[in-house]
């Protein structure tokens, strides 16, 4: 079953320095991306890094990421029949 993983970007502000969900997930389901493409001459500002579910097929539904997030930014649900 594939979960729906939502990250509230208003709450998750500094994933590059926090990293808690990325390091807690035993199946490495979550990943960091950027919400802007890379630019020449510039380092992508840390605030443009976002956490998202990537490897949904590996998610067991343990909810460890939901619990470990200090901002309660992650929601994981398995409804919807898929």
């Amino acid at each position, binding site marked *: *079953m*594939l979960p729906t993983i939502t990250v509230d970007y208003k709450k998750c502000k500094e*994933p*590059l*320095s*926090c*990293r808690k969900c*990325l*390091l807690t997930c035993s199946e*490495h389901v979550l*990943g*960091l*991306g*950027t919400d802007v*493409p*890379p*630019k*020449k*001459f*510039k*380092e*992508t500002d840390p605030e443009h*890094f976002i956490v*998202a*579910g*990537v*490897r*949904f*097929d*590996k998610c067991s539904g343990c909810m460890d990421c939901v619990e470990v997030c200090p901002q309660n930014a992650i929601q994981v649900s398995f409804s919807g029949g*898929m």
Partner: protein
Amino acid sequence: MCDWCEKYGDGYERWYFNPANYARRLYKIRKEETEASGAEVNPQVAGGMAVVGRDFLELVAKGDMEEVNKIKQQVEGAAWVTHFGQVVTLDEALRVVDIMYPISLISCACRRSMSGAPDEENFVCMGMGPGMYKWERWPDTYRGGVHFLTLEEAKEVLTKMNKRGLVHTLFTFGTPYLGGLCNCDYPDCAAIRTVVDLGIRILWKGHYVARIDEELCNGCASCVHRCQFKALSFVPSRDKAYIDEFQCFGCGNCASECDQEAIIMEERASLPALATVW
């Protein structure tokens, strides 16, 4: 020999021993689409590590194999032109650094994406060739820039990475230009993860296959943790290690760990059923 050796080997034993594949034009104001898109892999987070999106996973879950295969072919076709890799052994990687220049350590977009690895700990990738001058020129874009290595340093680094258990892979940036010598593992390398778990061949098997000589194997199981491709296991009823030769990617990391020299790296081409399994 693999499709790439046939196409780009030009008489060399392997396409990645052909020096021409490490050279590319340094300056061109307007690149053709293919050449341009080879460079557009997001160097900061490898595109969030998602080679395919959630919709692909839903199709797999649904069992719609026709659609799944269609998407696989699309993704593979695009990757083989712009950015894909092949596994090599440590010895092959050491030969590669002999024939190209420059080589440098660069930060790994995959590990940054997977675990938010801080730049200081994240220089596990190696970049090769003229493309590295781009990284030197714009260190901010490429997070951490480059750390150029001498030939000796490069070989030392590769040997250390291999001891740690990382797998060496060569990656194109606009095939056949080989710009990346990566040190991969499962599941934090997008390529290994995608090929092993989803069967999308953005990483090709190497030119060798590991085989166990069961008479020499003493059942110590030291090799078992070395396989990043789910090809190696331990058989308690025989007290021997076992390699699924059709799954084996030929990296050689199990063989280098075996004290009994019970694992042999065979040329893939010499095994009729495996010669075209890439």
